[in-house]
């Protein structure tokens, strides 16, 4: 039974604002029950009915038959600078939607269940920054992220939230995004950003996924902690920053480093300590400020131009592999079992056959085709 077409038919009917009885009549069915049986997957839509449905609902064939595309599903919030125009974001969102839909569709074909739960933080716009920080700390403990949370965060997002984390090559100006999609929330990270930025984005977007219902983020938010939007929007982003900082730099671990600082130059110490937490020295500075640990004289001594750390020293950083292991494994299974054609896979990922081969090799998987 072709579940995809049945489900999409229901979505298109609802989008058109038609009842089952109304659409059944337009499609020439003798009663509403025929359409009900189709929508619930008990009866198949015939070719002629499919053609009629496209005309009546005014959608293209792909709307009803292409599961590798999001159709009116998914809400995105991008972390991007002023270079990223709405047109650029829109074009990239289309591509990102394809990747996310690909992962979801292959999961459906392979019988992989997705979570029906949507975890939420009990925060809202009236929550204090201290409450957001406390929740960040608490979540790190609950998820067992350890002393360097950045190292374990991606895995925790996948296993505890059932969300997908995709490392992508985004156009200049786009740092990352959160995508709210029932059953498959996703975080996109520009893998070419420095390590500290990537980790901060991951934590920041986690906040949005966990608070989307009560505090929906804007479609575009600035990268640096310079949230110039209107009152409500600025507040949400500041809460997200406080949450992210506490999640990545737990107070109990930070305290050990702080007490051992002694007479080290504050700029040097910030750079060294940020490298330990795999965050930026500037993010660490603000974390200490919010904790009230930096004195006035410390602030006087801090020179932002000297805060160069953004994760580990550059030569020790590596660019993450594109996409992520669960994504590539799902794709590999699909090609090996003939659930997706190689040419279709290459087109979905905007790559070539050679590009697909390189992708599988990067994850230590045998290339499942010789074309």
């Amino acid at each position, binding site marked *: 039974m*072709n579940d*995809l*077409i049945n489900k999409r038919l229901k979505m298109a009917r609802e989008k058109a604002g038609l009842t089952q009885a109304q659409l059944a009549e337009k499609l020439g069915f003798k009663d509403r029950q025929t359409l009900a049986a189709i929508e619930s997957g008990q009866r*198949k*839509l*015939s*070719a002629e*009915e*499919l*053609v009629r449905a*496209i005309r009546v609902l005014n959608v293209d*064939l*792909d709307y009803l*038959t*292409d*599961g*590798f595309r999001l159709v009116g599903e998914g809400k995105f919030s991008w972390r991007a600078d002023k270079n990223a125009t709405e047109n650029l974001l829109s074009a990239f969102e289309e591509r990102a939607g394809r990747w996310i839909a690909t992962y979801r*569709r292959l999961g459906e*074909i392979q019988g992989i269940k997705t979570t029906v739960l949507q975890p939420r933080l009990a925060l809202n716009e009236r929550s204090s920054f201290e409450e957001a920080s406390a929740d960040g700390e608490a979540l790190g403990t609950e998820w067992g992220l350890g002393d360097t949370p950045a190292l374990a965060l991606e895995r925790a997002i996948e296993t505890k939230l059932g969300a997908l984390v995709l490392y992508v090559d985004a156009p200049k100006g786009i740092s990352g995004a959160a995508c709210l999609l029932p059953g498959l929330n996703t975080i996109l990270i520009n893998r070419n950003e420095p390590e500290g930025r990537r980790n901060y984005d991951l934590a920041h977007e986690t906040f949005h996924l966990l608070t989307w219902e009560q505090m929906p983020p804007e479609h575009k938010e600035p990268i640096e902690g310079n949230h110039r939007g209107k009152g409500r929007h600025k507040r949400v982003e500041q809460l997200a920053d406080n949450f992210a900082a506490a999640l990545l730099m737990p107070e109990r671990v930070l305290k050990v480093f702080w007490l051992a600082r002694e007479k080290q130059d504050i700029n040097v110490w910030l750079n060294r300590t940020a490298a330990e937490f795999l965050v930026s020295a500037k993010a660490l500075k603000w974390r200490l400020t919010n904790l009230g640990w930096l004195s006035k004289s410390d602030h006087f001594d801090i020179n932002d131009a000297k805060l160069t750390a953004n994760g580990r020293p550059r030569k020790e950083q590596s660019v993450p592999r594109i996409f992520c292991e669960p994504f590539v494994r799902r794709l590999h299974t699909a*090609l*090996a*079992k*003939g*659930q*997706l*054609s*190689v*040419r*279709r896979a290459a*087109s979905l990922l905007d790559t*070539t056959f*050679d590009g697909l081969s390189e992708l599988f090799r990067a994850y230590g998987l045998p290339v499942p*085709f*010789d*074309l």
Partner: protein
Amino acid sequence: MQRGQVVLVDTNVVIEAFRARCWRAVSSHFAVEIVEKCYEEALTGDPLRPGYIVVDAAQLRMGLQKRHAVSAVQRAQVKARLTYPDALDAGETDLLAHTLGRSDAWIASCADRAAVNAALELGWEEHFISLEAMARAAGATPTLKHHFTDRWLSEVRTTYKLEQVLK
């Protein structure tokens, strides 16, 4: 395999025939036909990309007996019949859609596992031929990639049949 037999080919087969330099032999032995989308795909791509196979447009045209346009209705017809209507690329889908309306003794060659599975689902069992078999019939002995061999095609068909039995 009789000279002049109608054979439908997909994009992968065209590109491999050019790579292995057997296009001329195959296309002069058989009446090779293609759908428009596969024709377009065979001629598309970045020629500067490493490993890019040049498909000479004139040679391709000369070797083709017919090019078939596929309508949206034909596409809808094939998609309504497939378990996974979105698993194939546009050219592969159009090739399957085109064959739904044919009643002559056509055979076809495609080299992708998902495409072969979909074709078997549509009842193509008696219609397959590998590029290797085509080249052999035309008196050529090219060195082909695995997906274009008799052995690969046979393996995929057997696996498909076994999976249907075990379902």
